């Protein structure tokens, strides 16, 4: 059906593509630690080779009721509902930062439970709702 030339090219291309896919796969697997944008509190908890001088990013939810705002400094707890890390930060925070919402903090770990942040980013989830709908959803939840 297929001519010999076409077959040769098809086989050659398939084999090269297979190799390329494998190569990419192993590269990504090896680089996993560099690709993840932030670590969760549980990742930090399980990690044994923590370098406290190196900048890291940790992310999770801002624990409800944990935010303490004082003039320019803010303290709050990042949780992944399993483990928690206490964060201290001085500077401006993004508008979307709020309790119960996603957050990513960049800075240095002081110890496994205490983090000194240089910058704070708010993380938006995949839900988009107008204000009225959100209030209704909230009402249904309670």
């Amino acid at each position, binding site marked *: 059906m297929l001519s010999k030339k*076409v077959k040769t*090219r*098809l086989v050659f*291309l398939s084999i090269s*593509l297979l190799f*390329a*896919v494998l190569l*990419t796969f192993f590269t*990504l697997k090896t680089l*996993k630690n560099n*690709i*993840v*944008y*932030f*670590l*969760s509190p549980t990742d930090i908890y399980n990690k044994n080779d923590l370098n406290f001088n190196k900048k890291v990013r940790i*992310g999770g939810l801002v624990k409800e009721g944990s935010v303490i705002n004082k003039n320019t400094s803010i303290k709050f707890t990042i949780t992944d509902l399993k483990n928690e890390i206490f964060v201290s930060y001085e500077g401006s*925070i*993004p*508008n*979307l*930062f709020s309790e119960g*919402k996603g957050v*990513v903090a960049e800075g240095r770990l002081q110890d496994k439970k205490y983090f000194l942040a240089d*910058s*704070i*980013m*708010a*993380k*938006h*989830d*995949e*839900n*988009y*709702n*107008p*204000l*009225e*709908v*959100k209030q209704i959803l909230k009402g249904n939840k309670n």
Partner: protein
Amino acid sequence: MFNRLFPNKILSLNNKFFIHLIFLMICVIGVGLIYALLISPPDSVQGNSVRIMYIHVPASFISISCYAFMGLISILSIVFKIKILPFVAKSIAPVGFVFALVSIFSGSLWGKPTWGVWWAWDARLTSMLILNLLYIFYILSWKLIKEFENANKVSSFIAIIGLLNIPIIKYSVDWWNTLHQTSSITLNSAPTIHYTMLIPLLIMFFGLIIYSLIVILMKYKIEILKLKLKKNKIY
């Protein structure tokens, strides 16, 4: 319908055909923009910056799909050596590149008020930047390499290797922790966008896809015209 894409038939797609398509596009995008900018409500968390999404999401989707088509067509072209396929792939590139740029810049504009940063080196944003670079390499390889056969080989190689990046872009938000949110519209579950925001998004999708089709067809027509002129030694 597809036999219209053959070299002799594409030239019969005259201005009238394009004007009809352009008219349709203006109507759809017009309605979409009015819906997106005026009628749809602001988001409860992001406020009005949610409106950037109506451009950002279709632009990203189109640029990724264009690249996927380019790569697949390049595979077919390498294996089966069908003469018109390189021209089809070449015609898809510009519109894909433009939308990849739009995706990066509109995302950046959205990121600043939402995340608090213009740019983050997370997997989704980085792989999208790589898509931009792949488009640039692809287009440049056609522009800089004078001999057709060589240009065809190099550009097809770039397009095919770049195909590996497509699933990485798509699944980056699921495989790794990223600042970018996961997809709101997926095949196997209900969209997590409220319908008042989903409708303008879908209209914009439709409008921008028509736009892409117009640009691709026009570019393809020009490529075929050039080919004919070259054959007759006029160009």
